């Protein structure tokens, strides 16, 4: 397990906006054909997520919307609307065209398949009789 794919997190990309910026908790794991990311984005709708790929830097940015119920006064707040932002540097072997993203129950699931030529191949060993 020496591959450092998507390990490097760059903080320079965080910009000051009207919402406070939060770094979302992320799991990174290997799958059969590449790397997968699970990113916690509670309170985020699909249209508020943006995943961009620039050169080898994959950036996830999203906005959570915590709409206060009308006619109610806030009495306690653990969380507020935030802008989630996090970047990862991918290794060369990721098939950039095949990256897919899915948002489910407030978690963004990203699949980063490796290019076919860099996937492990089984070499058959032949014996001579």
């Amino acid at each position, binding site marked *: *397990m020496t*591959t450092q794919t998507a390990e490097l997190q760059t903080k320079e990309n965080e910009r000051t906006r009207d919402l406070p910026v939060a770094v979302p*908790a992320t*799991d*990174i794991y290997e799958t059969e054909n590449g790397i997968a990311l699970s990113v916690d984005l509670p309170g985020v709708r699909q249209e508020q997520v943006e995943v961009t790929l620039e050169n080898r830097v994959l950036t996830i940015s999203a906005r959570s919307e915590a709409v206060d119920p009308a006619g109610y006064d806030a*009495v306690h707040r653990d969380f507020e609307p935030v802008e989630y932002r996090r970047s990862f540097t991918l290794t060369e072997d990721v098939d950039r065209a095949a990256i897919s993203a899915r948002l*489910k129950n407030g978690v963004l699931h990203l699949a980063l398949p490796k290019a076919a030529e860099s996937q492990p191949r089984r070499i058959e060993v032949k014996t001579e009789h």
Partner: protein
Amino acid sequence: MVYPIARLDWSLDPFNGLHRLHRDMNRLFAGFASPAERFPAINLWNSEDGMVLAAEIPGVDPKDVEVSVLGNVVSVSGERKTDSSVPADNYHRREREAGKFTRSIRLPYEVESDSVQARYEFGTLRVTLPRKEATKPRRIAISAE
């Protein structure tokens, strides 16, 4: 992992100070208070008709979340499961905590437990807690001579 029950202390609660003492005692015995004590993060709103609670619980199956009301205490509990198809060795980074959680909140009044509504959407739970009619403040007419 089971997270300890944490109480909120806020201005509406007349027993605020007592809760804080209780919590501080717990902390004293349990060692350092972990951030997990605050899971899930909760927002609360109040009005004449009742309260609304929102909790950030991303990545759970709605079936694995339970909301229960007993008198004036509302509890949110459940389990955030890990993807069992991924062997532990396959993780490069693991920041999303998994396990069982419970958080209980004492409200300043009793709620109509039969008409409590809960909805899970975008990883956020929203619970509507209508105030029990009998506990609503009554306006006392002031008669003047």
